[in-house]
């Protein structure tokens, strides 16, 4: 986790963040943490909405794991995102890692907000 790529940080995002006084690694750390929490929230809301009987899982892979069982689906979903977050942290020197983390976190936030508002509208 603490292995550091000796190449200097580069790319526009890093330079822009530097001007704002934001550490790229710290931002990536928080984004990945948020991504993990949002993934867990997505899992809980998906389970709740499926339990309510108003939705079906449209992701074929997740549908397979949900069919296999709640524990299996939980381990798969949390595991995949955890591994993905670790990989992004591992390549945190690359500007693409930060871009990917921003996009993934924003998408997960949109999905979780949509589901949360839907549940609240019941």
């Amino acid at each position, binding site marked *: 986790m*603490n292995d*550091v790529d*000796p190449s*200097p*940080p580069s790319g526009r995002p890093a330079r822009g*963040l530097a001007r*704002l*006084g*934001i*550490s790229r*690694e*710290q*931002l990536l*750390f*928080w*984004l990945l*943490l*948020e991504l993990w929490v*949002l993934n867990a929230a997505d899992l809980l809301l998906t389970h709740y909405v499926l*339990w*309510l*009987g*108003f939705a079906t899982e449209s992701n074929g892979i997740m549908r397979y794991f949900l069919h296999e069982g709640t524990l299996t689906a939980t381990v798969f979903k949390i595991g995949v995102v955890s591994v993905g977050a670790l990989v992004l942290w591992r390549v945190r020197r690359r500007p693409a890692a930060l871009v990917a983390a*921003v996009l993934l*976190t*924003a*998408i*997960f*936030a*949109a*999905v*979780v*907000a*949509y589901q949360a*508002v*839907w549940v609240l*509208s*019941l």
Partner: protein
Amino acid sequence: MSPPPRPPPPPPPLPRDSGHRLVASIGAATLLSRHREDRTDSSAPPSARALLAAALVVVCGAILGVAGFAFEQGHANWRPHATRTSAGWRVTQPRLGIDGADLAGDHLAWQAGPYTIVMDLNSGATRLVGAATDAQSVWPPAVSPRGAVWMEVADGPGKQTQTLVYAYDFTSRRRRHLLQTSSDLSAASPVVTGTTAYWLSDRDGTSLVTSCDINGGGPRVLASGSDLGPFLLADGSLVIWSSQPRPSAPFSLTVLDTSSDTTSDLTLPGQSGASFDSPVLADGTLVWLRSANQSGGDAIYSYDLHTLSARQVVSGDSLVGPAFDGSTVVWAQPAASGSGDVVMGLRLPGGTPFRIAAVSGDVSSVLVSGTRVAWLVGAGPRSSLATARLPQ
């Protein structure tokens, strides 16, 4: 006295290519410095600015999600127009119309095109509980104070027609898929009382009366025969179904008390040569519309299953209904002025008719439950549902 410190020795003379080496060493030192800084950053507590920036990403994503939900809801064609009136609510379904409705307790449910919609009459909040956009047909829901039940017919695997029975629990707000069957289910069913749904089905020439708890549990066949239906009624522990060998033949009624698992035959008085329409069972009393085939006049009758006594509630021409909740019979009749209909009520036993509302259109069905009454006006896209409080 100590001697003054010696000045540092002068640096050795640089070789000719030392400029490059100096730049390289400065670069390496810078790199090492950055490397150390980064190591320091990694172990340092994350800054508030980074945390705020990360939170901003989440907020932007959440705004997108909420906007997407609002856009989707704004363009949904199932959403009814519900307006509060001095007496209750008026509901219309733009473009779709209202095809059939039921009322129980604080909930009104209706079918609009492929949609099944539930409304909380206290708050006016509506909820889409069924969207059978792929179904060939949907039947209007049946409602009890605990939940709603409805059926959809859709193409199953291999283009075989499948009937699906759904239930929605008002308390848990949970929708359940109770049954999927290739049997033909009667359009007169399902009915629901409490948390138990009942329906009539036909498979290979055998008719079945089946029950199922809307909160789970498998279906249970209560009765089977070759000619069950078309009527199926349920209230509390009582279930009544009709048996009719042919559509035009006289029918008989069978009463099942599920609390004691006993059945008995029921013969209604004065039914020869008259039709038996819109039967309602509530609180041990059966109420129905009797249209005399010869005279053309209508009458609403009640029959108390406990005392086995029948009475004529009202008679007249072109009666619509009845609805009955165990204490109040509600019907609609043409207004004396000749324009529109009047929704009327009468409390059993022995009450006198009272006017509930005057309606400008033609009432096609009436509903009553507790202190609330509802009526469906017209048909097609211009149909509307109205609710009101029963006069005390």
